[in-house]
């Protein structure tokens, strides 16, 4: 009996064997492999819609880029595409690549295999985007660049976007008179979006275009010109804290979106400065709830509102025409944009500037935001009484 108990004690299943520990040292390469496998599996969840009695040939696939860096793709774009494509009564699928370029390529292959006639593509980077367009062209499938221009390779059949250079231009142009009215020479920071996102480049080009003459004649002083990797707010906070350490007298910040603007405001407040009271001008983009709240409180000077429904509807209209093989010139008005290789028909949508004075007329009237979600807690005191 004793002997029996002893054998149980050394039962290998019960024991921690050294070879297991040896295996652990090989875990890092495995992690990489598994991560890529898992992310590839995770992403390809299609959302097929097959309305009965669809009389259009083929189907439309919408390839969204991710869900984490901006909430718009899953909360807004997906909803608007469903609205309008249901109305057109056409077969469609909306998929999301969750930030992985290889996943997006797999999804494009699936779309082509499944008989897509038009792909609406939000590319993750120029390289993979160009590969998808080349693959689609070979298969006779039309591609529309949605919101992001694929800047290399054969180029899409059409491009729909807000004119991002105009967005950047608007930030600077709206603030220009107030900047000029500052008592001391304005000390300006450019806090740009992700260096890998072409839109961030366009935005910067836009506001730099307005600011450049002032930098050159020395009336405005350029303190810093930095990009935030992946539009990450947490990194933006540290970046701006450090900029503020080198120069505590920053008076103008061109923040490329509302998230970066909120990090800038947090950094100012942590440093004991209230941007609103100190007359510091901070731009933003996307008209998020947080952005509008900051505008109401006076900490953010403006945001740029891009009516996303209009963008999705414009893309859907283009897709329907390409699907039926019709001309799209009426939609583009003959306008084109170069992707570096060739000129692409371009539907440019006009952004809208939102300041404290026109919140109601823009985002509220459009149903993009409601007073209820904005006027929460301490922000209620800034809201109009008759809302």
């Amino acid at each position: 009996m004793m002997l029996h108990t002893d054998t149980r004690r050394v039962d290998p299943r019960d024991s921690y064997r050294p070879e297991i520990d040896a295996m652990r040292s090989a875990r890092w390469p495995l992690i990489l492999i598994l991560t890529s496998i898992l992310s590839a599996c995770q992403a390809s969840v299609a959302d097929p819609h097959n309305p009965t009695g669809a009389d259009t040939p083929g189907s439309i696939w919408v390839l969204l880029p991710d869900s984490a860096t901006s909430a718009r793709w899953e909360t807004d774009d997906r909803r608007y595409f469903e609205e309008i494509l249901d109305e057109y009564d056409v077969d469609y699928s909306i998929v999301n690549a969750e930030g992985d370029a290889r996943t997006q390529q797999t999804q494009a292959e699936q779309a082509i295999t499944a008989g897509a006639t038009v792909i609406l593509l939000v590319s993750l980077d120029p390289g993979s985007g160009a590969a998808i367009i080349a693959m689609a062209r070979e298969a006779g499938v039309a591609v529309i660049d949605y919101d992001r221009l694929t800047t290399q390779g054969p180029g899409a059949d059409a491009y729909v976007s807000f004119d991002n250079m105009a967005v950047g231009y608007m930030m600077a142009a709206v603030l220009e008179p107030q900047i000029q009215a500052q008592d001391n020479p304005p000390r300006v920071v450019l806090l740009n979006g992700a260096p890998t996102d072409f839109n961030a480049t366009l935005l910067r080009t836009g506001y730099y275009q307005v600011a450049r003459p002032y930098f050159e004649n020395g009336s405005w002083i350029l303190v810093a010109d930095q990009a935030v990797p992946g539009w990450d707010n947490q990194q933006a906070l540290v970046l701006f804290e450090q900029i503020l350490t080198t120069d505590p007298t920053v008076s103008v910040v061109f923040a490329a979106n509302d998230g970066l603007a909120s990090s800038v405001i947090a950094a100012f407040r942590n440093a004991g400065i209230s941007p609103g009271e100190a007359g510091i001008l901070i731009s933003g983009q996307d008209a998020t709830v947080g952005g509008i709240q900051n505008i109401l409180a006076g900490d953010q000077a403006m945001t740029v509102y891009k009516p996303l429904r209009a963008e999705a509807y414009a893309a859907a209209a283009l897709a329907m025409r390409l699907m039926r093989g019709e001309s799209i010139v009426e939609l583009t008005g003959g306008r084109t944009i170069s992707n570096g290789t060739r000129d692409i028909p371009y539907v440019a949508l006009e952004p809208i500037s939102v300041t404290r004075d026109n919140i109601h007329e823009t985002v509220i009237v459009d149903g993009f935001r409601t007073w209820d979600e904005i006027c929460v807690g301490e922000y209620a005191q800034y809201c109009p009484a008759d809302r």
Partner: protein
Amino acid sequence: MFPPPSADSPAIRPSTPRWLPRRLLTGDFSLISTSAALVLITVIFGLLEPSFLSERNLVNLMLQTAGLFATAIGVVFVLLVAEIDMSIAYVGAVGSVTMTLLLREDATNWPWWVAIGAALLLTTLIGLIHGTIIARVRAPSFVVTLAGLLAWSGVVLILTTEFSTSGTITIQDPVVLGIANSYLPPAWSWALYLASLLVATIAVIFHRRSRQGQRLPVMPPARLAVQFLVATILAGAAIWYVNRDRGVPVVAVVSLMLLVFWTYVANNTRFGRHVYAVGGNPEAAYRAGIDVDRIRTAAFMISSFMAGVGAIILASRQRSVDTNSGGGTLFLNAIAAAVVGGTSLFGGRGRVSYALMGALIIASVENGMGLLGLPVGVKSVINSIVLLVAVLGDALTRRTRQPFGE
């Protein structure tokens, strides 16, 4: 009771590498090399950009280190039992998002302490789930927590988009905002300084008495006095310096409390000794009667709990949570902080103070590069060099230890 098998555990001093003068290294090799690295970083950035040495930047550094340090403490415990937790950043984000949702004035409007308590309870439960699967089912920790990474990133996304249309939820509770955005009045900071000195003195005396009573070796009085004096002067100088700016951040006091508490748990409790024993040699620990599964599960609970603490500090600093919470560089930086500090990836070797040193190094490099305004690409390359040097250091010290039987 069970002598910890590893050389770096609190009871035994590490063997000195032969190529370095023994007297210099009778202390803790990792703490000395990381301190030297910090001095080097300070000198380099101080020369390149004088504002790196300003009182304002020291306050910044304290604020920037706190969240990373808290998260890295959990990483140290998981690495000590020779496991890995891939999910920390998103588990923490589940906690901070939950807290923020519970605090919303137009919805639940819970008091701050209930919301924080609920969030930390939730993250600890997540750790319990991970740990139970890993320890009881014997599933490899990296796959289980990788699954956790995917799952909890999804939960963060669901929570942030379900309860807000813009994906960003602001925090308005003054106490929660105060965690990372308020400072001690100078008088309080000095009172706290004196109180800490008193408590530390008493603790050291009692510790020595108890060790002498058990006929265990104690540090020579002269060296103890020198160490104590250096720490006292450094802390006093730091407090004086930051009081010229905004003062001692509350979050720095929180960090200090976390450091003391978890160091006590690791060094002076039976649980802590079991953690080192399990990490150093699980077979021996098992045969000595330690419930290995329970210790492993507990390590994952600590890691998730501290991820929650770290995420709450970061959310307070950000004054909001968003769909991207838990993304970004936090996960890599937290693991890097533990490893750069000197925690071994192979288990049984590491301290809570290593997490602090590692977090300080990572945060100060990031801080200095921010001051210099370096482009993103250059920063990534420099960060990778810091990590690589630290891992080489780990490998090197491991090799020098091997002749001594590790």
